[in-house]
């Protein structure tokens, strides 16, 4: 990489004039020959000082950034076993080199999981190991200079923390942990990603990623109620801030705003209505997503999660259910109990928290809902396993329930279901390309590329089986595919939520 100044590093790259082109859809995922530096020009906008300071980070790159970064690295090595162990034990065997969606599409070797991790390790070895201090470059130990920092900023924002590499690593090395630590270090020296930092600021100020205030939220819910009533003639309610309800539903705020997210919102509402369960949303907990995880900042993650706890104490629900959102479900499933648990006030008969798919499928299996599968006959459905759901969570009691339950639910509400290539689903699923804080338009090239493996697999089933609906359980997946489908020549409408299908097939008012 060429010489770079602090100012250049902090300046957001100018927008490209030519539109981003998508790779060709051939149905095949080919292991490419490496092209050095092919994706190095990608970088998301940097966060402005006022946004950074709001989260307690320095406004801009501090003068002694190198010293501060190394100090922070030392601190994280003491705090995270994952980071410490993963710094030491990689043998560079190469097993992960062809597993990342960003490498397969950009061909840039720094987008190979080990290539990305080595950007971190070369600094670690230089300042924290005897091997690196004595042997220097021979042992791959390198000074942390501005050029390397620029590479960090570029490539650690081309990792969606999807954990696919970890599946294939003989030691389970999880690049997500390393990229989270890298972002935490960059934030701590004043180099933050605008998208994530801005969203976190909105959660703290207003309560959700979108910055939707209670009045707007109320308006959106009323609108959805009107829509459902217009369509079905049945007054389905979407209650807000109801005390002592049976269920508090926490869902990504995108469900109140975007398409096709909102169709799943309709689905949730119909399920609760038809099951006759008293439920509520909360203005305080109007966001399931937790971008604190993307930047590896424990304090931010805990602060965002604490809003859920506040809502539980204010509204006193008996159960806690989480809507369709991938990384949110990871934070909820793996981290909430630690961050804001134990959930002593919630009914222990049900999982704390419970996923909306677990919730709805349970109702269907108990015969509490009447389903007309033919309502979805116009669709041939496939299912995209969201990376965070697949590799960091579970549904139900058995390992792998996170794969089986969504499929069971789809098959319970739709007649035509087709599976994509086995190498691209379940534990081996590819990220949609927009996860982990990459869902921002200035790096659309990264997003389009990242979607490539999934697009190839989808292309295959569209061609061979006429698939015209890819069911999703993640707000980021929905937004990402809606944005990149047109670039690949696939209609936007092919992307939708599982509860969109549920909502269509659910027969309202048919009970008794």
């Amino acid at each position, binding site marked *: 990489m060429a010489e770079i100044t602090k100012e250049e590093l902090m300046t957001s790259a100018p927008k490209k004039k030519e539109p981003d082109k998508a790779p060709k859809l051939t149905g095949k995922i080919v292991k490419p020959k*490496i092209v050095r530096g092919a994706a190095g020009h990608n970088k998301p906008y940097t966060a402005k000082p006022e946004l950074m300071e709001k989260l307690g980070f320095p406004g801009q790159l501090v003068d002694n950034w190198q010293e501060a970064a190394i100090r922070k690295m030392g601190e994280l090595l*003491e705090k995270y*076993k994952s980071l*410490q162990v993963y710094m030491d034990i990689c043998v560079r065997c190469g097993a992960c*080199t062809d597993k990342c969606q960003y490498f397969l599409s950009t061909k840039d070797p720094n987008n190979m999981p080990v290539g990305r991790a*080595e950007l971190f390790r070369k600094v670690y070895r230089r300042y924290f190991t005897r091997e690196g201090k004595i042997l220097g470059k021979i042992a791959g130990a390198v000074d942390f200079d501005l050029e390397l920092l620029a590479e960090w900023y570029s490539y650690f924002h081309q990792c969606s923390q999807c954990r696919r590499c970890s599946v294939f690593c003989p030691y389970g090395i*999880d690049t997500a942990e390393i990229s989270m630590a890298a972002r935490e270090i960059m934030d701590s020296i004043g180099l933050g990603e605008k998208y994530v930092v801005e969203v976190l600021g909105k959660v703290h100020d207003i309560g959700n990623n979108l910055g939707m205030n209670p009045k707007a939220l109320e308006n959106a819910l009323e609108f959805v109620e009107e829509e459902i009533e217009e369509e079905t003639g049945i007054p389905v309610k979407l209650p807000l801030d109801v005390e002592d309800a049976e269920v508090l539903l926490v869902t990504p705020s995108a469900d109140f705003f975007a398409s096709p997210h909102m169709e799943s919102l309709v689905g949730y509402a119909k399920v609760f209505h038809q099951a006759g369960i008293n439920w509520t949303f909360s203005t305080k907990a109007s966001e399931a997503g937790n971008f604190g995880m993307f930047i590896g900042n424990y304090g931010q993650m805990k602060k965002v999660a604490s809003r859920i706890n506040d809502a539980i104490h204010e509204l006193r629900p008996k159960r806690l259910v989480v809507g369709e959102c991938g990384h949110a479900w990871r934070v909820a499933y793996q981290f909430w109990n630690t961050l804001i648990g134990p959930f002593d006030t919630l009914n222990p008969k049900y999982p704390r928290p419970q996923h909306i798919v677990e919730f709805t499928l349970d109702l269907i299996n108990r015969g509490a809902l009447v389903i007309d599968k033919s309502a979805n006959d116009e669709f041939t459905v496939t299912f995209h396993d969201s990376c965070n759901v697949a*590799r960091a969570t579970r549904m139900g009691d058995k390992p792998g329930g996170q794969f089986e339950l969504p499929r069971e639910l789809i098959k319970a509400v739709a007649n035509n279901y087709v599976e994509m290539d086995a190498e691209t689903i379940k534990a081996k699923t590819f990220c949609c390309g927009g996860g982990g804080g990459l869902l921002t338009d200035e790096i659309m090239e990264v997003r389009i590329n990242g979607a490539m493996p999934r697009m190839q697999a989808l292309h295959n089933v569209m061609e061979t089986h006429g698939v015209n609906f890819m069911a999703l359980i993640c707000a980021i997946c929905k937004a990402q595919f809606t944005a990149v489908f047109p670039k690949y020549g696939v209609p936007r409408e092919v992307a939708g939520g599982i509860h969109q299908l549920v909502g269509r097939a659910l027969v309202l008012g048919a009970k008794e």
Partner: protein
Amino acid sequence: MNGISLFYIAFAYVAVAIFIIGFLARVWKYAKTPSPLNITLTPGPTSTTGVVYRMVQEVGFFKSLFYSNRIIWLGGYIMHLGLALVLIKHFRFFFTPAPASLAWITTFEAYAGFIFLAPLLFLFALRLITDRTYYISLITDYGILALLMLIAATGILTKYYVRTDIIDVKAFVMGIVSFSPAAMPMDFIFILHFTLVMLLLIYFPFSKLMHAGGIFFSPTRNQADDPREVRHVTPWAVKG
């Protein structure tokens, strides 16, 4: 006893001390560094027994690597197998009389060194051939392979070609183990072999070879998938 013997005896004590202390210090660091959150890779075992089974599959069969890349698995697995045979074979130098339970090793006696050396060559070549692994390989990666190959080669030479006297070697090693030093066999190939092994022991705790101890501390593999049932608590995470 001559000066060379004295030097090598001292060298051996220093090397072994560095290895043991260095290894334990590293493992101690892994053990005491907290894991603030449950980050197990799913689908995964939901119980401790399940975690042990998962670890056995990984350490005993390199399961993930097998599903990831059969060629690297083949090279890596046979290399480690060869290493295990070679190590077991060397146990005979540490016990008098040699334990009867190790008698079966004589079956592999003749091949052990080759089972170790051949995959090392294969892994070395693999690094050079694939553009992706060539890109990520450090000089030290080749260096460790080269060091192991030299150790294997000199070991094979002492057995088949220059035939170091096994009785003398055993006396020398037993002398070190029992703290009553005996003279070193003055055989160039053996001395070279011994020197390289000591260098390996010294380098071990400071290198990627720590994967040997580190794998047991990998949180994605050693945690049970039970975060909803069991609250995962570490001091700083609950305070922070």
